[in-house]
């Protein structure tokens, strides 16, 4: 990147950064002005200092929850992509199962979290991973299937004119067409995985972020609760950014990305 391009980029970020710090400043000031109790909302600075003093506990709790979220994300997304590939190959089956999948997607899966504790060893991270995985599965599956089947008929005809079989068409046309759909689903799935892992933590994972939040609140240690939320947010953003980076490398060819200037 040239220097001028870098400068233009930085200038584009200036408004967002200003708004961010203005928001923090308003937050800090309004607590003093309106005399807001700390159990309602601690001062930002108090949250940051709690984050710093308890960084080692928060980090180990965050690492545990991140492993649950990332494991669930990997499992759920892989299963979603695989099942979508099978349903795309056997279209009849896909059409029969799609309404069921969409209905299942509307079920608040997070409600099953305590049940997963009964299904799997509640002391292991398996029930948390399962919650995260099931949350990730449906959006990834539905979007991948949509991508795999949204190939233009003319592209399939072109391949058939080259005597291509179903497998060749799948590899050379369906998969590349589906990739932008898959990545937008994966980005949503990172957020869902983090939500799933933390909510499942509430039902008892010793030393996890969810439990840290819950226990700190019951001890009236709101700064620590907020610091744990800050940690959860940072980890969530990290997962999202990681997937976005892979997307940026894999989808360099995508014209819709070029137009947005993100590639």
């Amino acid at each position, binding site marked *: 990147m040239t220097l001028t391009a870098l400068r233009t980029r930085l200038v584009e970020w200036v408004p967002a950064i200003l708004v961010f710090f203005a928001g923090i400043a308003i937050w800090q000031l309004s607590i003093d002005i309106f005399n807001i109790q700390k159990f309602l909302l601690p001062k930002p600075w108090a949250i940051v200092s709690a984050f710093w003093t308890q960084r080692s506990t928060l980090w180990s709790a965050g690492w545990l929850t991140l492993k649950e979220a990332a494991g669930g994300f990997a499992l759920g997304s892989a299963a979603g992509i695989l099942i979508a590939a099978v349903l795309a190959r056997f279209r009849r089956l896909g059409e029969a199962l799609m309404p069921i999948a969409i209905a299942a997607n509307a079920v608040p899966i997070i409600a099953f979290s305590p049940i997963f504790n009964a299904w799997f060893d509640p002391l292991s991270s398996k029930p948390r991973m399962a919650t995260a995985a099931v949350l990730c599965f449906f959006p990834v599956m539905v979007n991948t299937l949509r991508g795999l089947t949204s190939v233009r008929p003319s592209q399939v005809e072109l391949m058939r*004119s080259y*005597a291509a079989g179903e497998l060749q068409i799948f590899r050379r046309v369906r998969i590349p067409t589906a990739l932008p759909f898959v990545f937008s689903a994966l980005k949503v799935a990172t957020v869902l995985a983090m939500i799933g892992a933390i909510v499942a933590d509430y039902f008892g994972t010793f030393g996890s972020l969810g439990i840290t939040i819950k226990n700190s609140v019951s001890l009236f240690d709101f700064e620590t609760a907020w610091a744990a939320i800050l940690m959860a947010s940072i980890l969530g953003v990290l997962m999202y950014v990681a997937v976005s980076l892979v997307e940026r490398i894999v989808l360099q060819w995508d*014209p819709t990305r070029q137009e947005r200037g993100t590639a």
Partner: protein
Amino acid sequence: MIVVSIAGLTKTFPKGNVTALQEIDLQIEPGEFVSLIGPSGCGKSTMLRLIGDLTPPSSGTVEVNGKSAHQARLDHDYGMVFQDSVLFDWRTVAKNIALPLEMLGWARAKRKQRVDEMLNLVELLGFGDHHPWQLSGGMQMRVAIARALSFEPALLLMDEPFGALDEMTRERLNIELLEIWRRMSSTIVFVTHSISEAVFLSTRVVVMSPRPGRIAGTVDIDLPQPRSADTREDPRFFEKVTEVRELLRGVGADEHGSVLAEETA
């Protein structure tokens, strides 16, 4: 040997019980440039797809190079160019052209050499690393033609390839196509809506009538080769255009407008 041999070909679509083509007989010899022209619904695109074995006939036979159309497709006997260029966005121009070569299992070095030859042929040298969306419509169509020609099929099936282009680009690509046809001594079956394009390009124009699709007549175009921009100003060119237009009027094309309106504009 006959390149394309069609006998008693009928195609009906069960949906709406439409007879797209009825009892078509047509023989195309090596080196011919045959245009299929007719109003919408005369089945000219369907005929091209039947020759390419992209849709099965309801009855009758289609033979390509003396074998069934199905076998000819499996043997890569033809290259097809569609109405829209059908390029893959995730492949560069060079990789789009190399697609059929990959499917044929050519080695990388051989592929690269052929792609360079093709880029040269369609005058796109230096655009190999571009992606399709970075090119104009006319350039995209040239990539599609290069791709269809890359594996040197003796038969080229073209379905209104220049229909979406402006008049000037279309006329230039017409001349380029004739040059390619002459250089590669291939056989071309060309579907078009434009009378002047059909007359300018072809050695024979097949006029089709709609509902059901039938061959209304054929016009041999014996204008001198090679053809150039001057050909379009030759009085014999206008005679042939008039002859084709009269045939089209006979099949009621003026009721449907499209073919004649375009020519008088």
